[in-house]
C-alpha cells in the first residue's frame, strides 16, 4: 500500500509537469489553432537561461521569473517573425515545418551556447546539502517538497490563467480571437497582437515548467524536454486541445497512469510511452474531441 501511495505521489509529481507543458500547448492551440512542436525546445532554452542566471548569483526564484519574462518577449517575437508570415491562408503543413525547423534550430543553439554536459539546476524548494529534496510527513507518507512546490505552482498558474481569460477585458479579447478571428477583427480587436500574446504567454509558462522539471531532476541536458513533450501532447490530446482545464486534469491522469502501470505491469518495462499513447488512442476512439473538448460543427 505504501508503494502504491508513493507511486501515486510520484505520478502526480510527473503529472503536474506534463500538465504545465500541456497548458502551454493548449494556450497556443486555442489562440492560433496550431500545434507547436517547438514548445519543448523553447522551454529548454528558457531553462538554460534561468540556470545561467541562477548560477551567476541570482536567487533561483528571481532567475526563473526573469527567464519567464525573457521567454515572454521571445515568444511574441517568434510568433511575429517566424510564424505569422507562413500562417496566413496557406497549408497548415507549412507551419508544422516551421515549428519543426525551430525544434532543430533551438535545440542545437542551446547545445552551442550552454554546452552538452549535464547541468544541475538549483532547487527553488527546500533541499539538503547533497541536493536531495527535503520531505515532509503527511498522513503517514513522506512527500517530497518538489511535488508540493510543483502542485502549488500549477494551481497558481491555473488560477491566474482563469482570472485572465474569464475576468478581464483582455481575456475576453483572447477568447473572441480564438473563437472567430475574422469577426473579432471586425469589432476592433487587434487580432495580431492577441496572437502574439498567446505565444508569449505560452512561452513563459513553458519556461516555468522547464525550469521546474530541471530542478526536480538530478541533472539536465538538451534532451530534457523530449519525453516530457510527448507526455504533454498526450495530455493535451486527452483533454481536448482547446480546454485548459482538460489539459491540467489529463496531465495528472497521464502522470499517475504512467507511474502505476510501470510499477505494476512488467510487460511495459522499457516501453512506458505506450501508456500515454494508448490513452490517447482509446480516448480519441471514444471521443474524437478529447475528454473536455468541444464538438465543432463543420459546414460543407
Amino acid at each position, binding site marked *: 500500500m505504501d508503494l502504491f501511495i508513493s507511486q501515486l505521489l510520484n505520478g502526480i509529481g510527473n503529472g503536474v509537469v506534463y500538465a504545465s507543458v500541456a497548458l502551454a500547448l493548449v494556450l497556443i492551440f486555442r489562440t492560433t489553432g496550431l500545434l507547436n512542436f517547438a514548445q519543448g525546445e523553447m522551454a529548454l532554452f528558457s531553462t538554460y537561461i534561468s540556470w545561467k542566471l541562477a548560477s551567476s548569483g541570482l536567487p533561483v526564484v528571481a532567475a526563473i521569473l526573469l527567464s519567464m519574462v525573457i521567454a515572454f518577449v521571445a515568444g511574441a517575437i517568434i510568433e511575429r517573425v517566424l510564424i505569422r508570415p507562413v500562417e496566413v491562408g496557406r497549408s497548415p503543413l507549412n507551419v508544422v515545418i516551421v515549428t519543426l525547423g525551430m*525544434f532543430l534550430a533551438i535545440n542545437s543553439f542551446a547545445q552551442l551556447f550552454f554546452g552538452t554536459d549535464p547541468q544541475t539546476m538549483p532547487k527553488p524548494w527546500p533541499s539538503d546539502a547533497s541536493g536531495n529534496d527535503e520531505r515532509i510527513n503527511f498522513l503517514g507518507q513522506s512527500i517530497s517538497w518538489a511535488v508540493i512546490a510543483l502542485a502549488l505552482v500549477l494551481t497558481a498558474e491555473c488560477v491566474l490563467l482563469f482570472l485572465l481569460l474569464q475576468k478581464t477585458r483582455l481575456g475576453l479579447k483572447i477568447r473572441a480571437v480564438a473563437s472567430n478571428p475574422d469577426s473579432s477583427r471586425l469589432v476592433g480587436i487587434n487580432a495580431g497582437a492577441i496572437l502574439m500574446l498567446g505565444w508569449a504567454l505560452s512561452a513563459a509558462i513553458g519556461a516555468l515548467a522547464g525550469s521546474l522539471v530541471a530542478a526536480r531532476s538530478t541533472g539536465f541536458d538538451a534532451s530534457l524536454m523530449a519525453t516530457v513533450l510527448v507526455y504533454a501532447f498526450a495530455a493535451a490530446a486527452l483533454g481536448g486541445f482547446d480546454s485548459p482545464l482538460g489539459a491540467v486534469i489529463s496531465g495528472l491522469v497521464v502522470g499517475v497512469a504512467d507511474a502505476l502501470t510501470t510499477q505494476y505491469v512488467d510487460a511495459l518495462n522499457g516501453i512506458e510511452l505506450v501508456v500515454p499513447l494508448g490513452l490517447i488512442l482509446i480516448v480519441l476512439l471514444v471521443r474524437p474531441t478529447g475528454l473536455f473538448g468541444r464538438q465543432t460543427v463543420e459546414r460543407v
Partner: protein
Amino acid sequence: MTPTGSPPDRPAERPRRTLRAPGRGGGDGAAGSETGVTAPVDPSHPGAGGMPDGDQAAAFARPGEAPAPAATSPGTGGDGQGRDRVTVIRIATGVILAAAALYAPFYFEPELNRVLAQVLYIAIAAMGLNLLTGFNGQVSIGHGAFFGVGAFTTAILMVDHGWTYEPTIPIAAAVAAAVGVAVGVPALRVRGLYLALITLGLAVIFPRVATKYVKGQGGIALLRPDRSEFNSLIDGLASDQWQYFECLVIAVVLFVLAWNLVRSRTGRAMIAVRDQELAASTVGVNLSRVKVGTFALSAAYAGVAGSLSVMIDRAADGTNPILYFQRSIEFLVAVVIGGAATILGPAVGAFLIVFLRRNTENLIEGKEVLAPAVFGAALIVIVYVLPEGVVGGLRKLVARLTKRRVPPSALTAAPMSESAP
C-alpha cells in the same frame, strides 16, 4: 469518355474542351500517351515527361490556394504552341535527368553513390507519405515507424532466418502495410493535427519496442546482415553501383505506380476525400476504404524504403531513441519542400534534404552541433520562399513564362473561343 483529341484537330476541339473542363480533356489523353513512352526510362522523375496537365492540376490544388497552372490553362492549354513547348521542355528535362541518373554511378565515387542511393530510398518513403498527406490529406509524422518496420523485417529475415536480400523486400512491404492498416483504422476517427500527434507517438515508441524485443549481437537492437549478401550479381558492376541501380529500379517502379494511381478513379477518390470528405461520401466514395487503403499503401512504400535502407546503410538500428522520429520529420520535410501533392516533389525534396544535411554538417568548422540549426533554418527559409514547394514554385514559373511567350494573336483568340459556347 475516350480521348478523341489528337494534336492536328485541336483547334476544332477547343470548344468541346471548355465544355467538359471539369473532366479530363482530350488533350490530356494525348499528352499522356506521348509521354507514356518516356516515363519508364525516366529514373527518379517518372512524372517529368507528363506532369499532370492543367485540368488535372486544378483537381490537385486545394481550395483556397491559387491553382497556378490551371489558371493559365485556358490561355496556354487552348493554344497548341505553348502547350507543345512545355511538353518539349518536360520531355527534354526528363531525358536529361534519366541519362544523368543512369550515368551517375559510373561517374561518382562509391561513397557518393551511397548518398545517391539514400536519396532514392528517402524519395520512396516520401512518395508514400505524399500519397497519404499530399493526395489524401492525412498528416503523418509516424512514417519513420513504418520505415523501421520494413528495415527490421528485412534484417530479421536475413540475420535470423537466413534469407537472401531481395525476397525480403515484398515481405517488408506487406508487414509495413499490415501495421499501416492497424494504424489507419483508428486514424479514421481523427483528423489533421490530432492524427499528426498519434503518428508522432508511433515514431517515438518504435525504437523502444525494437530495443525491448529485438536482440542482435551483444543484446542490443542493432542487426547487421552479412555484407556479401548485397554484392553485385552482374559482372562489371561494382557493389555500390549495383545497390544504386536496385534502388533506382524500385524507385522508378513505385513512382510510376503512384503517378498512375493518382490519375485513376481511386486517385480521384483520394483527392476528393482530402478536399471535401462529406461531399466525396455523398457521391459514393467509401471513405473508410479509401483512407485505410491509402494508409496501408503509404506504409508499404515506407516499408520498402526501410528495407532498402538496410542494404545501403548495412544495418537496422533501434538503439537511437529518436532516429525514427528524425526519419519521420525527414520524410515530411521532403514532401513539403519538394511540393506536396506533386509526383516529382518527394524526389526533389529527398535530394534537397540529403544534400543540405551533407553540406551543413561540415559547413562550420568545429561547430558540428550547429548543423541541425543550419538545416532547420534552411527549412524555414524554403517554406518562406517557396510555400508550395520546389515543384509547385517551378510550375508557377513555367506557367508565367509560357504565358508571356504566347503570341499576341493567340492571346486575343483564346478568350473568344472561351466565350464561344
